[in-house]
């Protein structure tokens, strides 16, 4: 009985694992061959399920399901190929970072299109009746559908393996995923295969969507819910390795399922104490991922070494700008004065809500600035930066609840705890570089996200409530909510006070960062961004500088999180609001959007992002579609971000003036790209 039970659980694990295999195979080969971190893979997966809903409807489950499982992946594959042709292709040779911005935009667009066409109601994907009944073999009882999923996905995996290993195209692709340069050197145009790889990857994801849709249900959040586990699988198995994707998928599926099934079960009893399996579901896979990355950064089956320096170029925003430094300083001054006067305008409009939006912008401006220190200067791309924002917010809330309400103590606490966290995470993560660093920080962030659900002191899924900040120290000062004063007959409340506090902190944070970048420490960071190897051989301990930058950045992100908790607009600090991975993606997108490596670019990015969101959402429900499209256009045409627009315009004008017939064919914004 125990054995049968275990086998049933194993079958459940394999069922889930096979879905991961289908998802990860495409994701992994796409990364291996093209260096594209494809966040939209999850939405292509969802698209497969939604298309099959529409295909099954007229035919009924009996035949419709089989038609759908053939037709829908083909359709999604074609969509994938079209996406590669139109949006991904122009970006090859750039740092994988730009694919994050691009595919993040694609996620917003595809998800909104799904909502528009199919609605938000969750739907059942009808499966032929003979597949959805239980079957008992040797006392092991699971659904026929489990066996179907395992066998069908295994067949597809074998076919894919055959194509990769036994056909000419496949061997080229496989060689390309291990060493692209070598393939180019033997005279094969590997770029020609990208569309094929992207299309097939999308089709495999679509199959996974249909198969899993039939097992669970079809809903708009399904893409988002699989993308992170899929990344874990890919990293565990080794980026670019098909074998790794298969092994990683099955491993994650089985480990997740067994942890779930046996958590809380008793291992042994000693007198009064019982030893039980701890409830670590959710944490396990991330712990596994961190462990593997630390021991074998290239993953269990990865053959690629760490990518060489200078594989792609990070385009910083301020470089080659047309505005003189003095003009920039003046513009910055004007911006600060305008922000300082904004509340007065808001007062006359009589609408304090704009202050809430401005507060959000300021908090995110600090958060994005903190990211720029590591991303734009030290060349580190953390995909888990929201862990500091979240931990800062939680720390601040906990300090207010249990220790002190003083704003200064609270913010200092948030900074210190996050700096310590950043030191620990940095010490472990900085030894791996590039995309592995991105993934290991993602794993840490997810670990913390899962952890806050488990503890009572963090308030579990509800989060923390009932805290209040006090503007002052000790007994000198005033509760934020008690602050109200009159000015010109208007009543000014806590929102105003907080706004000026946030503005002051944002300006100070910027000045601090700017000062630092003009001091010896910051100058070394910039040299690391330019050439890590060179920096090391003029005598700098590169890892130590990176780690210190990470600590400073983490502390500053913690400050942003602390401000979120202190803000009078915030009555609750909950996990999704602060620690969900999506915020790590958002802050990267905001920094890129504004212009990396400039410090002020990301801050402007925050203003434009939230401003646009606020503005668009008041006119249309499809604002995500518009913002997503905006990201895609930006990454294609304005890769250095908003701050590069003046120099782009200047170049265009110059080109127009000189264009007596000889049109400059080089896009000016990608000139240093190849």
């Amino acid at each position, binding site marked *: *009985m125990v054995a049968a039970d275990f086998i*049933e659980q194993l079958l*459940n694990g394999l*069922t889930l694992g096979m879905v991961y295999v289908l998802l990860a195979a495409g994701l992994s080969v796409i990364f291996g061959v093209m260096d594209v971190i494809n966040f939209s893979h999850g939405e292509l997966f969802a698209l497969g399920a939604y298309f099959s809903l529409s295909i099954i409807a007229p035919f009924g489950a009996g035949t419709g399901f089989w038609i759908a499982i053939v037709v829908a992946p083909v359709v999604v594959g074609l969509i994938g190929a079209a996406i590669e042709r139109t949006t991904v292709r122009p970006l090859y040779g750039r740092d994988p970072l730009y694919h994050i911005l691009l595919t993040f935009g694609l996620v*917003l667009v595809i*998800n909104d299109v799904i909502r528009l066409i199919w609605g*938000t*109601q*969750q*739907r*059942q994907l009808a499966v032929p009746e003979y597949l*959805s*009944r239980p079957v008992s073999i040797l006392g092991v*009882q*699971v659904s*026929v559908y*489990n066996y179907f999923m395992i066998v069908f996905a295994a067949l597809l995996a074998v076919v894919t393996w055959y194509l990769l290993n036994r056909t000419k195209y496949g061997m080229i692709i496989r060689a390309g995923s291990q060493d692209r340069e070598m393939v180019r050197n033997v005279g094969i145009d590997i770029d020609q295969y990208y569309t094929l790889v992207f299309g097939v990857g999308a089709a495999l994801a679509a199959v996974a969507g249909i198969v*899993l849709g039939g*097992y*669970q*249900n079809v*809903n*708009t*959040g399904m893409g988002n*819910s699989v993308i992170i586990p899929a990344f874990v699988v890919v990293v565990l198995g080794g980026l670019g390795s098909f074998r790794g994707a298969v092994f990683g998928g099955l491993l994650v599926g089985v480990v997740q*399922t067994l942890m*779930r*099934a046996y958590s*809380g079960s008793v291992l042994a009893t000693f007198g009064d104490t019982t030893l039980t399996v701890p409830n670590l*579901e*959710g944490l396990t896979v991330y712990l596994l991922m961190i462990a593997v990355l630390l021991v074998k950064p290239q993953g269990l089956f990865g053959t690629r070494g760490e990518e060489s320096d200078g594989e792609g170029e990070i385009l910083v925003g301020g470089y080659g700008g047309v505005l003189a430094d003095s003009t920039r300083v003046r513009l910055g001054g004007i911006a600060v004065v305008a922000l300082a006067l904004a509340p007065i305008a808001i007062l006359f409009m*009589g*609408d*304090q*809500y704009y202050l809430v939006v401005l507060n*959000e912008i300021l908090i995110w401006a600090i958060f994005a600035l903190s990211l720029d220190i590591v991303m734009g200067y030290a060349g580190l791309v953390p995909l888990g930066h929201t862990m500091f924002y979240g931990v800062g917010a939680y720390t601040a809330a906990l300090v207010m609840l249990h220790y002190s309400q003083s704003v200064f103590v609270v913010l200092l606490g948030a900074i210190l705890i996050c700096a310590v966290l950043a030191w620990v995470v940095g010490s472990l993560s900085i030894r791996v570089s590039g995309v592995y660093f991105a993934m290991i920080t993602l794993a840490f962030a997810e670990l913390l996200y*899962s952890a806050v659900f488990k503890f009572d002191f963090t308030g*579990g*899924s*509800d989060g923390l*409530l009932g805290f209040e900040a006090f503007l002052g120290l000790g007994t000198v000062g005033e509760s934020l*909510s008690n602050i109200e004063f009159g000015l010109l007959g*208007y*009543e000014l409340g806590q929102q105003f006070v907080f706004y000026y506090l946030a503005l002051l902190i944002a300006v100070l944070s910027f000045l601090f960062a700017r000062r630092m970048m003009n001091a010896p420490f910051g100058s070394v960071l910039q040299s690391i961004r330019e050439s890590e190897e060179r920096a090391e051989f003029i005598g700098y301990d590169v890892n130590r500088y990176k780690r210190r930058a990470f600590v400073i950045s983490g502390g500053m992100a913690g400050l942003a999180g602390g401000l979120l908790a202190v803000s009078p*607009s915030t*009555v*609750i*600090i*909950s996990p*999704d*609001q602060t620690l*969900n991975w999506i*915020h790590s993606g*958002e802050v990267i997108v905001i920094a890129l959007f504004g212009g990396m490596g400039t410090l002020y670019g990301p801050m402007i990015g925050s203003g434009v992002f*939230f401003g646009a*969101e606020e503005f668009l959402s*008041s006119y*249309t*429900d499809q604002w*995500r579609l518009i913002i997503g499209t905006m990201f895609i256009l930006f990454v294609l045409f304005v890769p250095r971000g908003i701050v590069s627009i003046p120099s782009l315009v200047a170049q265009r004008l110059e080109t127009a003036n000189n264009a007596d017939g000889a049109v400059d064919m080089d896009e000016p914004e990608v000139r240093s790209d190849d």
Partner: protein
Amino acid sequence: MSSEGTSPDSSVGIDRSRRQFIAAAGAVGVLGLAGCQGGSTGGEEAVTVASLNPMTGPYSSLGPGQRTGAELAVAEINNNDDYDFEFELVTGDTETEAGAAQSEAQRVVQEEGAEFVFGAISSSVALGLNDFAAQSEHIYFPGGAAVPITGSACNEWVFRFETNTAQIAEAISAYSVNNLGNNVWFHYADYAYGDSVYNRTSRRMENASDDYTEVGTSTSELGASNYGSFITQISNSEADVVMLGMTGGDLVNFTNQAADQGLTNQMAVVGPTQTFQSVRAGTGSNSVGTFGGARYDPSLETGDNQAFVEAYASENDREPGNFARVGYDSIRLMAKGMNEAGSTEPGDVRDALEGGTFTTVLGDITLRESDHQATNPTWIAELVEGGSDSADVELLEQVPGSETLPPASDLGCEM
């Protein structure tokens, strides 16, 4: 999927777009904290009410129901001469995420000037809005069912027409243990709602029968998608009944997989929200044979339910579900409170609502003075083969409102 954002639904005629509203507010010269009076239309006083619903995120299949119910109520109130004011409905998307919900709440209250707010489903969001209501002193009708909303986190500005988990637990616990089997397995999602179902139902079952045995418990994470391992575990136990502390997509996935793996034929599967329209839509025939608590059913003859069902069906081409019912009557209760108070000031309305008895689609209910919870009756139901794609609800037994609700002090409310 950004989560800090906002997405007001501007597609419905009775909504005024935000920009128009600002223009109106500006025109009549509203200064300071915007819009205690709101913009005025015609001769009647216009009162801004807000409906904040999860239109995206994990509960996006439930939010639209809330929204539609609220919209119908607003339309009826505006066409009804019994009310000498007009409702101006503004909407927002809570995204099932406290940050987005807070910023939406501030928008509707501070920018749109709403002082009567309805909405939210998840407990975290509702608790956040609870707190905000107390802070800015406006009326709030939460849509969530978690006990603490009118329990330990209750406050004088919060009134709940939604039936809470404690009430549903009363309805399903006694029936399950007495009629479906004594050996009960509990499977619940590891978050506030799941914990609360487990605590309530297990305690009630213990009181209801001496033969009750808790065979085992298992927990999954909120948003988990694969329940095969739990179902295997439960199926291999001695349980006659499995009680599910989960809702939304979690419950749909569990039910589908339970049917596939034969658990539904083997034992009674009971879920407090099993009868929800969205759950039935997501499970199809897989939910046939399961049991659920019912907070509402369109077939009810209570109160003015049939008029509501008719109006709703003619407007939307389908029957209302529980969330539409909550949206509809939460808005109507605001209006009835205003009539009772003879004022549209939140403070006056609050005093009128507190302890008041009103006619709703569930008959006459009282918003208890002690915790502002509506004394709704509840039902236990079985899901049976239906005419359409999804299963039908067959009500088995009613528990009257007076018996479902434990004293406020038991639920942790001190007001």
